[in-house]
């Protein structure tokens, strides 16, 4: 009984201490920053198709994503992307640039622990689960389509 009371008091204390993010401004910021990143992607994609008209839409997307990943990785390296992240929250996490940031950020951060155990291991702290879930679920989808294909 006493434990429950103490836990409640602790939870209340924690709730007071956790910095409250003001919901509406951050939502708005993540909306327009995320939107702008997508517009940037569309712009790169359109310019690529203008310069290389023989490119298929799929390879144009691949090139666009690689360029965005490069930009985000570079901005993370010079420390700008994390500033954007503080301001925009979800707007900087959800686009593919956030994926790139989640790989570069820890590998720069833990560089001091060496190339193998610092850079190479920490690189996947966030991207690891993303790739694992993505690959496993895509295998599942492939398996389902393969089984469906057996009967059609």
């Amino acid at each position, binding site marked *: 009984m006493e434990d429950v009371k103490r836990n409640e008091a602790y939870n209340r204390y924690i709730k007071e201490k956790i910095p409250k993010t003001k919901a509406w401004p951050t939502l708005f910021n993540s909306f327009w920053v995320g939107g702008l990143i*997508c517009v940037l992607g569309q*712009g790169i994609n359109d310019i690529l198709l203008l310069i290389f008209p023989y490119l298929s839409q799929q390879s144009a997307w691949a090139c666009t994503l690689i360029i965005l990943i490069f930009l985000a*990785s570079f901005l993370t390296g010079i420390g700008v992307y994390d500033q954007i992240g503080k301001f925009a929250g979800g707007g900087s996490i*959800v686009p593919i640039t956030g994926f790139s940031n989640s790989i570069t950020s820890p590998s720069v951060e833990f560089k001091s622990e060496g190339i193998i155990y610092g850079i190479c291991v920490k690189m996947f702290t966030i991207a690891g689960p993303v790739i694992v879930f993505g690959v496993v679920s895509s295998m599942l989808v492939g398996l389902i389509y393969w089984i469906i294909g057996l009967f059609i």
Partner: protein
Amino acid sequence: MEIFLDYLWVFLIGGTVCAIGELLIITTNITSARILVTFVLVGVFLEAIDVFDYISDFAKAGINVPIVGFGASLAKGAIGAVKTHGFLGIFTGGLTATAGGIAAAIGFAFIFSLIFRSHTKN
């Protein structure tokens, strides 16, 4: 004028997808890794039920640049490879389709982490 409307759609849809992510963070306090995983799974699901292409037709970068597009191309690769290579495609399809993005992310991260130092400590 038409191109302006296209970009407006991209902005609105891309922004909305990101705002949904932010809303998840605010309401449930989940970490960014879980946000990314959730959105990848949503993309895989949308592609699996064959809806993603219809969204992509009008949303363009608005849905392809968010990590949802990454999940969709994983699933699209797996489905396509199963159709052409059969059972082997289950294993080769997903990563083949997303190889460019993953290799770029790993490669650039490695190079830039060799070049730059951490900014948070100083």
